[in-house]
């Protein structure tokens, strides 16, 4: 297992370097000039100094290297300082946003909790709903429940979040007035009453995202359960007289959960993609919203950092999926 983990880790690091290089090269081709807003009355030498201050003076590979150092060496030190009160990062250059002229990671740290709360909650709910639906649909294949489940997950696949979102706002926020239509990110939870307010404003975005997650995972669960239920050892279990509960929940479910666990880990990044749209629809100021604003403002360091962070999330969850597969299914470790 240890060598398996090492090998998978060894594959993740080149992947991250590749992705960061792709993002950097794309941004190299960007036509926008970050100093376009600066008035023409500013003398050229001051302008040159400003370019220098933005880190634009050097050639591309030097800047790429600097960004890598800032991202992987300075930012962890800042985090360490923040937690332990140490002074490793004192006076070191961090990744600076052109938009706010402050470190990108500070803004990310402000906004990430909103995204993680909404996305995480939605994913947990989606999985918790999807797994039982998948199990029962497979167990009673072609029953009314199975047909209905298939239809609902097809709907979840087919109706895009930017349509479900406005539709839900229209019905539950505008017509019925049960929930607010806009997510209030300045709201803080300090007692039961404010917790209820927080809960109410989270319902709609979480519902939209969890519908997507549920659709995918319940299909996986159903397919995997179906293929296991048709195998010989299930017949053996029944033939030796085990109670049906035990056959389904122990023999079939445990084996069919193996691919589903990896599907759950692999599906999380696509939910982050959906979160960008959901954040726009419900006006949640998470990192998706930050990315969009940075793109529109031509704020390249922010765009680079945020895209890369999302890529890190994807690679990390791929790694977790691989390792979980190795833990759950010993055959995988010896390939």
């Amino acid at each position, binding site marked *: 297992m240890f060598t398996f983990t090492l090998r998978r880790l060894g594959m993740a690091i080149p992947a991250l370097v590749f992705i960061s290089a792709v993002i950097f090269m794309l941004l190299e081709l960007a*036509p926008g000039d970050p100093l376009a807003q600066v008035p023409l009355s500013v003398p050229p030498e001051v302008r040159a100094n400003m370019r220098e201050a933005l880190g634009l003076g050097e050639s591309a590979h030097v800047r790429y290297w600097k960004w890598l150092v800032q991202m992987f060496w300075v930012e962890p030190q800042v985090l360490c300082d923040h937690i332990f009160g140490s002074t490793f990062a004192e006076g070191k250059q961090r990744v600076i946003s052109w938009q706010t002229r402050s470190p990108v990671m500070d803004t990310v740290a402000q906004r990430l909790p909103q995204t993680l709360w909404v996305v995480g909650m939605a994913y947990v709910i989606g999985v918790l709903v999807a797994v039982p639906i998948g199990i029962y649909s497979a167990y009673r294949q072609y029953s009314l429940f199975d047909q209905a489940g298939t239809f609902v997950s097809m709907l979840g696949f087919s109706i895009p979040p930017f349509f479900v979102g*406005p*539709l839900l706002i*229209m019905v539950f926020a*505008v017509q019925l007035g049960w929930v607010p239509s806009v997510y209030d990110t300045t709201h803080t939870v300090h007692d039961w009453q404010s917790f209820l307010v927080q809960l109410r404003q989270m319902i709609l975005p979480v519902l939209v995202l969890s519908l997507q997650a549920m659709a995918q995972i319940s299909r996986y669960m159903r397919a995997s359960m179906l293929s296991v239920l048709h195998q010989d050892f299930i017949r053996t279990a029944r033939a030796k007289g085990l109670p049906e509960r035990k056959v389904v929940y122990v023999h079939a479910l445990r084996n069919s959960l193996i691919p589903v666990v990896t599907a759950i880990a692999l599906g999380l990044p696509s939910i982050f993609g959906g979160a960008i749209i959901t954040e726009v629809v419900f006006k949640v100021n998470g990192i998706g919203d930050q990315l969009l604003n940075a793109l529109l403002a031509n704020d390249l360091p922010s*765009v680079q950092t945020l895209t890369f962070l999302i890529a890190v999330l994807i690679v990390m969850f791929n790694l977790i999926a691989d390792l979980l597969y190795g833990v759950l299914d010993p055959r995988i470790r010896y390939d």
Partner: protein
Amino acid sequence: MTDPVAASHNRHGKWPRIWRAFRKHKGAMIGGGILMFIILGVLLGDLLWATDPQALDIRNKNMRPLYTLLWDTDAKVGWAHPLGTDSLGRDALANLIVGGRTSLAVGAVAMCIALLVGTTVGILAGLFRWLDGPLMRLTDLVLALPILPLLLLVATLFRAPLRAQFGPEAGMFVLIVTVIGLTSWMQTARIVRSEILHLKEQDFILAARSIGTRPFALIWRHLLPNTLSPILVSATLGLATAIITESALSFLGFGFPPDFPTWGKMLADSVQRMDQYPERVILPGAAISLTVLSVNYLGDGLRDAFDPRSHRRSRN
């Protein structure tokens, strides 16, 4: 075995069997019918409904669809604009037809690019052992790219040069189609590769090799026809994803220019005044959802029809 009559007879046996299995899948039949209706409506709709989608009819702006009469007899409706007009008096029905044409065209072309790349990568990886490792590693890497952020990034960066090259609409079309196509071929590549790996070990490939068939002929005549079913299934999935992705880009404001309607853009433009004119969100949204839903059901039916195991299961 070399008898051409026997070969064609064999083909006659395979496709009717698939068609019979497909016809039994009720969802796929309904989905196929609806998709056919949408495609015909979008392609030929402007012959029946000749109103210019860009014509401004300021006097008749903000009209409601005819069906609003059912609950609101005072609604501003008219037979000249059965689905209403927008805030500049442009006809909603004509816009839906033209917008759908763009959405479907983007979906279809992007899907073709994805299929072409995916099938090529899959066949090369499955057939040539020395290419298998690098190509599959590449597939894994592209799968790990954050697609939507990258799409947004590329759409902002390359918008201006491509517009200068091909004009505002065509430039955007080329950009969106290429980008969606180049980021959604990975599943097809994986499926085709595993299919090829499986086929490669079979006797008829060995026989073809032993009589000296060249690799290209082997691929074209023996491997491709046998991988057609998974390719078709992933084509439907690809079409559905491409339509949704294009609409998502338009929704976020990174899509086609303002006077060029697509379903996603019509929806995005109307969200602001959704409480007054809900139909402007619902109609394009329903069009996207219905198209994607029917494509997905079609794919489901195709998969069941192509999979010999599912016949056995449904028969007993």
